[in-house]
């Protein structure tokens, strides 16, 4: 990739940026889940690797979160956009060169940002932990060039209309920049007090709701029709999804702070808007699952569909939890417990990771014009991810319910710690399975690039998956 940095635009093979982003995202996924597994071990066995400042839980937790969100999820999004946006516009990526520079500077910036977080240099605000110089770097060096590539590719398209996926891509990148710059106002302008606390969660809510959820959904809007050959079930339901995301998902930020002394009208408003998140959620899930009509065998046979549809199915419990757990009565019970940790992993490791993994599997095969080196290893990766995630989610949900009960019934906290111990071990096992599954994945993709069978021109990887 690096040899293309100073090449002429027309000399750079199409898809280079997408490949660069995709391989980087898999590497960051391994790093992020490895850190997560290490952290989980510390919650089960606190003296595991003690005595080093750098390996302290409080220093590593946020590195795990940001390695996964900015490294894996965001870079997998970038990889998807770099090949899906031009494909849907029947055109080339606006600038491969910009894409390659973007990916390089993205990796460099992320290493720097995580190193600073690791050493404890933080803004002290969850999800916007990065210090303000890094925030500016993320916004203007990592995100703006990426957005520019997406927007310009859509503007230079050779189709008349814009497909659903591309509405989401273009709008989400715009919303990401706005949310990122406004959400970090407390640092840029030194806002203090409840305003600072509220803006922290305004950012955290919107960066997840306006970037990760819609882009992951947009990816499935592409993968499912493309691989199955079925047209999208309904363009209009897609409209409903899009507009209800913009309206309903951008407003309930205050439901993260239901127990804080924020104005009551704001909490009630946020809670109602939070339930309305079910509108885009139901529209989206129905739309994708109905697109599968007549092609459900592919859920078993095809690796991309297997990943995508698993993600979509996981979106059902995700949205049911998300819609209702923030109402006052339920929030009272589960706020601050492991339930929320389980829910966050259901969103990021469940729904969105499965969608992105499908996009990266599909994208690398299409861009490299090679079919998967080993379908068996891909299936193995799928099951490692799914079983590992399920162990994690179930154990943390149970742990959360124990914590909630203990919170209500005035149990001394240390008894909660004792009761949770077995679940912490299961969570560690689950996370470790995901980690090892990802190492297998990287191996499989590297072998695909080197030794995968070429996909004939005009054929889809899915069509030749079982031919020798």
């Amino acid at each position, binding site marked *: 990739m690096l040899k293309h940095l100073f090449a002429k635009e027309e000399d750079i093979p199409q898809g280079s940026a997408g490949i660069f982003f995709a391989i980087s995202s898999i590497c960051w996924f391994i790093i992020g889940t490895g850190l997560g597994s290490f952290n989980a071990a510390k919650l089960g066995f606190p003296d595991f690797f003690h005595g080093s400042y750098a390996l302290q839980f409080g220093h590593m937790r946020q590195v795990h979160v940001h390695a996964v969100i900015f490294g894996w999820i965001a870079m997998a999004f970038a990889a998807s956009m770099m090949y899906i946006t031009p494909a849907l516009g029947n055109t080339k990526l606006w600038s491969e060169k910009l894409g390659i520079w973007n990916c390089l500077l993205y990796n460099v910036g992320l290493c720097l940002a995580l190193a600073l977080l690791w050493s404890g240099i933080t803004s002290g605000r969850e999800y916007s932990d990065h210090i303000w110089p890094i925030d500016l770097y993320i916004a203007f060096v990592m995100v703006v060039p990426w957005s520019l590539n997406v927007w310009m590719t859509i503007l230079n398209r050779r189709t008349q209309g814009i497909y659903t996926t591309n509405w989401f891509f273009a709008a989400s990148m715009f919303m990401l920049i706005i949310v990122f710059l406004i959400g970090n106002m407390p640092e840029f302008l030194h806002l*203090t007090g409840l305003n600072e606390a509220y803006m922290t969660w305004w950012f955290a809510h919107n960066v997840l709701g306006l970037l990760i959820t819609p882009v992951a959904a947009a990816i499935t809007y592409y993968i499912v029709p493309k691989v199955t050959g079925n047209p999208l079930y309904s363009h209009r339901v897609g409209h409903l999804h899009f507009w209800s995301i913009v309206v309903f998902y951008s407003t309930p930020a205050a439901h993260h702070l239901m127990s804080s002394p924020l104005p009551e009208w704001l909490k009630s408003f946020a809670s109602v808007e939070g339930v309305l998140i079910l509108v885009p959620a139901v529209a989206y899930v129905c739309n994708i699952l109905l697109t599968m009509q007549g092609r459900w065998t592919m859920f078993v046979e095809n690796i991309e569909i297997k990943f995508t549809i698993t993600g979509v199915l996981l979106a059902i419990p995700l949205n049911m939890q998300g819609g209702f757990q923030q109402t006052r009565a339920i929030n009272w019970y589960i706020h601050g417990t492991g339930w929320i940790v389980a829910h966050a992993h259901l969103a990021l490791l469940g729904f969105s990771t499965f969608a992105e993994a499908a996009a990266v599997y599909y994208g690398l095969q299409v861009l490299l014009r090679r079919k998967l080196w080993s379908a068996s290893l891909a299936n193995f990766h799928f099951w490692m991810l799914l079983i590992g995630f399920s162990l994690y989610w179930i154990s943390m949900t149970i742990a959360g319910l124990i914590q909630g009960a203990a919170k209500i019934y005035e149990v001394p906290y240390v008894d909660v710690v004792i009761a949770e111990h077995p679940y912490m071990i299961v969570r560690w096992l689950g996370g470790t399975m995901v980690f090892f599954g990802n190492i297998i994945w990287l191996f499989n993709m590297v072998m695909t690039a080197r030794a995968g069978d070429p996909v004939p021109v005009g054929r889809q990887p899915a069509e030749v998956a079982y031919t020798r």
Partner: protein
Amino acid sequence: MAFREYRIGCVMFGVALSLSMFITIILPGIDISSMSSTKIALEKQLTYGWETGFNYYDPFLQGKDKPIKVTLTKDPKTGAAIDKMNAYVFPPGTHFPDGLTHDNILGGNVQVLSMSLGEINSASEEQGGVFTVDESEDGTPYIEYATITRGWTVDATLKAADHQSLAGSGKTMFVREGCWWCHTLLPEQTQDWQTFGRPPMVGDFNGESPTTFGSDRKAPDLLHVGSRNSSREWLTMHFFNPRLVQPHSIMPRYDYLWGKTDADGKTIDLAAWDVHYLAYAKGDEVYPPIVPTPAPDSEARMLIDFILNLK
């Protein structure tokens, strides 16, 4: 953008997003900013100083640029006995919290009284100074610039102090070490209010940054922990190795915050300590090894001061 529909869509998108941000940022911002500070907010601002996360004056989060909270039982100027009270010493050059430098942070009467009775307008960061928190007859709290109103200088106040607390620097440690990933500072509407104490009120945060509510509670809430447990000895052992006082704790050890030497200047050998501790944990030794007393300028002392200050 050839289609008319896309122009309409872009406008609708802009309107929807702007309306959403108006409702979720501007309106709450106006509402929250109209709240007057409580006494707790004034005390917190004077304890924690300007900014506790990354900032230009303490880029490596070492607890620099922070005021010192002192306990006084005699008047630093005259030496006469006074009722026990707290004062907040800002050595020259220490940056002031927003409440002292911005007109709209303290809010309402608190601002008016702090300027008229408290004379906070005559304070400057270059000269530093000593501040106290007082209440007017109708119960309105205000900040008093004691260097002017009472003639208390920085040096005299530090000298006359019975006790100096580095709670401000300790909050930096709380942020840097990630204590808030497990301990919240926000008791919830459950029996928390009985076991962990009164929930924070709306004016309790004015001028504080970051507020570090925490979100993921893997450990007890700490907002009022200093009222439940005020033993410095217990906390010292707990931070050095939590398993010494609570065998089931999953908290990490913070022994590295002690630095290289203890309060007596003796070198701390963590590896040797660990050998004895493991023997004790196995049952081969009857007593655990002695936990070193943190040096007065150690990060451990700062963090313990912060915890004890959470009343």
